[in-house]
């Protein structure tokens, strides 16, 4: 075999191996990719909890198109801090006289931030909008998941 052919074969093999390694690395990285921590994601919208709720109450289809899956930085008064027996925490934002609210399910890696929040206090929370629960009797809620405190205030 001529040395030129040998070289071509060698380079071709190296390129194929590199492509395979690159592809394998990409597949493995993509397969094992975790959800990005919400604190590291820039908010798509920043608004008051009352505004968010009223937009959904006015027209939930339109609001869903606008907010669904988006990162929302919401500010409001803490109506309730609900902790269950398994340690999951939900911070409920809204007016205490209104049944409707924004329910923020705290990211389990950020549970300690709940200690910085007190009922009745003002807070900013960043989370991903997962939808709207329309309930006439219980009160309607906009639900945010993977929430983190945006700027904790006591």
């Amino acid at each position, binding site marked *: 075999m001529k040395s030129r052919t040998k070289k071509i074969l060698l380079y071709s093999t190296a390129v194929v191996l590199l492509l395979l390694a690159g592809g394998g690395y990409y597949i493995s990285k993509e397969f094992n990719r975790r959800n990005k921590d919400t604190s590291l994601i820039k908010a798509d919208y920043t608004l008051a909890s009352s505004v968010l709720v009223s937009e959904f109450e006015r027209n939930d289809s339109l609001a869903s198109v606008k907010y669904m899956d988006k990162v929302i930085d919401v500010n409001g008064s803490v109506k309730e801090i609900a902790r269950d027996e398994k340690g999951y925490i939900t911070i409920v934002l809204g007016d205490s006289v209104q049944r409707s609210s924004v329910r923020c*399910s705290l990211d389990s890696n950020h549970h300690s931030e709940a200690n910085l929040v007190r009922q009745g206090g003002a807070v900013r929370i960043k989370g991903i909008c997962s939808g709207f629960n329309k309930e006439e009797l219980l009160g309607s*809620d906009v639900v945010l998941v*993977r929430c983190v405190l945006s700027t904790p205030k006591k």
Partner: protein
Amino acid sequence: MWSLFDVYYQPLKNKFKNKFMKKYSLLILVLLVINSVFGQVYFTKSGKIDFDATSSSSPDRIEGRNRTAVCVLDTKTGSLQFSVLMKGFEFEKALMQEHFNENYVESSKFNKSEFKGSVADNDKIDYTKEGKYKVTVKGMLTIHGETKEVKTEGEMKVKDGKIKLEADFRVELADYKISIPGLVADKINKTARIEVDCSLELFKN
């Protein structure tokens, strides 16, 4: 469930002919409803529903967790309802979550799953006394826009004025027209396990 207003109000309004009673019939209705209905309604907006479709050949556990399910139980009638936002399911791996939402349950199109049913043996439960009860729940479950009848055993615990509801049942994905691509068919179980864990509080008006 909440069309009780129409059910109670119209006959009451027709019954009272005089002006005074007509004027106050709405107030009477509200008091009646508070007394007869609200006193027995238990609910949560932080119910836990887990979904597990791991098969024996899955390289990872295919499980999603939802902590934002709404559950309402009327202890008087045994009527039980669940509502869960599909985008509220969280998976350990982002790709799994994306596939779940985009390819399998199509959560942009079918954003909610609902169960509307009842506790079959409701009259055997003393909600005023602390204790554990084995219950049978049956009703209609809607996932991916498809509604099927389901029946499952569960446990109800009455403690400290709360009702804890736990159930564990299986659903055939094909029944809800959730199709699994051939390439990953052996990696995903065709029967998903659904675990329900809700702690219900008395609804106070």
